């Protein structure tokens, strides 16, 4: 009654739904992902300043999107927390930093924009752009005078790709595709 193609489509859909979650998560383990190698703070000029080493290893799907002119937005979340034993950690203060990476076809440049400050940098190579994004040096975090830091306080950092910032037609698919689930674990350090 129905063309065989119809069944193929349905089967395909189900196959893709399940396989993408399974295979995608397996692939994610070694080939792509957002990682935080190190993070620390030091007091300089009256500020707690953050130094961190991050890695933006993008999945093939994300790279394809980037090359096709889709800007990717990443969010860097930094929290000062007070760990608690029986409850979730209390967040003392929280800082968000957003970066956007876009490809400029005419100039063949990768443009990294700090969405908070508006500062924009161009890079001829994607790798350089991502590497530069991954280096955070002396980022002023907290005014030493304003916030009293206790001994048990900790800092934590996480980076993630913001799917909601992607073009709308992509979003439904990225919700269920593991290749688009780009998010690092929280990395904690002692203040």
């Amino acid at each position, binding site marked *: 009654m*129905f*063309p065989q193609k119809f069944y193929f489509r349905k089967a395909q859909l189900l196959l893709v739904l399940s396989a993408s979650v399974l295979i995608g998560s397996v692939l994610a383990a070694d080939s792509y992902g957002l990682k935080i190698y190190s993070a620390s703070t030091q007091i300089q000029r009256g500020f707690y300043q953050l130094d961190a080493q991050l890695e933006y290893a993008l999945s093939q799907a994300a790279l394809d999107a980037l090359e096709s002119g889709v800007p990717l937005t990443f969010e860097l979340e930094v929290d000062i927390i007070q760990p608690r034993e029986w409850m979730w950690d209390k967040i003392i203060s929280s800082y968000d930093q957003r970066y956007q990476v876009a490809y400029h*076809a005419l100039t063949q440049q990768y443009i990294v924009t700090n969405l908070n400050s508006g500062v924009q940098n161009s*890079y001829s190579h994607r790798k350089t752009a991502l590497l530069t994004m991954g280096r955070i040096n002396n980022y002023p975090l907290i005014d030493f005078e304003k916030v009293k830091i206790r001994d048990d306080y900790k800092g934590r950092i996480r980076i993630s790709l913001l799917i909601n910032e992607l*073009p709308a037609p992509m*979003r*439904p*698919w990225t*919700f269920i595709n593991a290749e688009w689930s780009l998010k690092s674990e929280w990395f904690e350090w002692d203040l």
Partner: protein
Amino acid sequence: MGPVVEKKWSAGLMPMASLLAILLVSFYVLSNATENTEGFSNMYGWMLLINMAGLLVLVALIGVNLFKLVKQYRQGVAGSRLTVRLVIVFVVLSVIPVSIVYYFSLQFLQRGVDSWFDVRIEKSLEDALQLSQVSLDLRQRALGKEVSGFIDRLSDVTDANAGLVLSDLLDRSGAVEMSLLGKNNRIIAFSSVDPGKVVPLRSNEDVLMQVRHGNHYVGLEPIKDAGIHVRLVYPVPVSSSADTELRILQALFPIDQRVNKLAGNVQQYFTVYKKLNYLRGQLKNSFLLTLSLVLLLSLFAAIWVAFFSAQRLMAPVRNLAEGTRAVAEGDYDKQLPSAGHHELGFLVNSFNDMTRKISQASAQAQDSQHQIETQRAYLEAVLGNLSSGVMTLDHELKIRTVNSVAGKILGLDFSEYFGMPVDEIIQAHAPLKRFVDSIKLLSEKPDQWEEEIIIFARGGRKVLMCRGTTLMDEHEQSGDHVIVFDDITTLIQAQRDAAWGEVARRLAHEIKNPLTPIQLSAERLQFKFERKMDDHDAKILKRSTETIVQQVEAMKEMVNAFTDYARAPQTEMQKLDFNKLIYEVSEMYKMPELKMHRDLDKRAPIIQADSSRLRQLLHNLVKNALEAMSASEQKEINIRTRCMDESGCRFVEFCIEDKGPGFPEEDMAQYFEPYVTTKSKGTGLGLAIVKKIVEEHGGMVTASNLVDHGAVIIIRLPVIASQQEESFSEEDDRRIEKSEGNA
């Protein structure tokens, strides 16, 4: 399984309607999120989760319903087959159109989205981009040459003068910004057309590294809010005279504003087109996902609704089926829950009306039956308490009803003969043959009949007064027969006793009393006139008076004998060995000229009898036999006893045969009545007394002639002490028939 309680439609509809409403809202949000609506797009993830959860809930609901339905189907629950059919029809009706729409939607999606894109447009956009790049490349080269021309001037410039030189170069070259970097990218000098700008736009590390290795860099760079610029980074040649560090010149040149704008447009549209081209696949995937999700949800919702509707629709039918089954099994009180105001509801209401009426009718029938039972029991009680036996036979003379008294009178258990022809009784109870034959004969009479029948049943000889009537049915045809019979044996006996008693009394008064004066008068006559007469006359007188006296004596004896007969002595029943008594009595009559044969059955049991009365009976019989043979030369008496079982009760049969002339055939029936005798002497009461004694003992006496010559008298005495239920043997049957034939 009890009846399916009909819930209100609203109760079942509410959760279904709310679930469907939630699904519809989520569909709306999903479709809006798939399109580019900001507000909804953020909720896409949640919507996806909610829809997945809804899908799971629906699958679970369908699974539960399917499991229940399959279970009901296997158990053969009423209405389950129809429910399965309805569900299949509903599912097919929903699946086919939805699938067709899904298929064409997919096709439309594929082709529709692809149709937006054109290879030629893509090509032309790429060409435009390349054109722009070529155009800008020319500009870059020109600028490169220009910078190469003046870069040498910076070789010998000291750090202090560098600022001035840069400003000069800036003015001449038309650059927007120039900076000179020293070791560690330290800014030696900076010059910009924007006086407010104090920090140069730095090149990235890669470029600087490249330049430090002796290469130069020329590249385009989009600058925020300022358009595309050309960035040139050149190493400043080191002068041989001075030992200075390697310096780097950074210069930013604007491009023509018109070119900038056009190139910017090309870049923008190319990017948009490329992005769209890329998003095409993503869009299709997303649409496919949304559409499939919507399809699955709609499909499962439809299937669930199919289950729900089918079960709702079938509930009254199922109830009706169960109700009908209950009515078939006799439960007339079955009432079904109302099914609403549609046709099925009317059907259910009609069913309820029907069962109510059946229930009422059934109750009335039960009531009537109860009344009939009561009347029947009453009638049975009345019949049972009657002293008469009542028996009804149908037109084929089969036994229909018999009361308990009838069984007692006839001495048999009628329960095994109900519905059987009355002839069947004879099979096991041969002595009742006369009774049965009489009934058969008399029941042919159209009117009422009345007859006295003598039977020899358990307990001895019985005289039954039978009255019969034929009941006419509604068609005035001969129907059932009602036979009422009474045991009048005792009554007749009493009547007879009373009659003879009266005779005896009369004899005593009317005959015996005058006898003594007659005798005395005769003796006085002889005494007074004997001496006055001559011898001759005196002889005559003497003879006459002697005759009178003798005859009066004889009359006295006769009256005394009669009185003896009429007097009903109180019999003293006791255990008695009949054989022994026979032996004693017969021994007294032993004479040389008399041949006496005794054949006494040793099995004869002890009977319950009055020994003096039986002794008188035996004397009478033996005397009777001897008197019958008084004229015969051959004198022979045969005495026999037999132990016989008849109709369940045991009898002792006693026979006495003589070789006399026998009874005259014409008077056979009257030998046992008083004053019937063939003999010249005797009172004529001998056999009457015999019969009386036999009857006193509940026995029966018959007389008959032997085939050659002689007579036989047969007496049967019941064994009252041991009434054992024993069946007839065929031999006994024959013997009884034979003896009755003789009688």
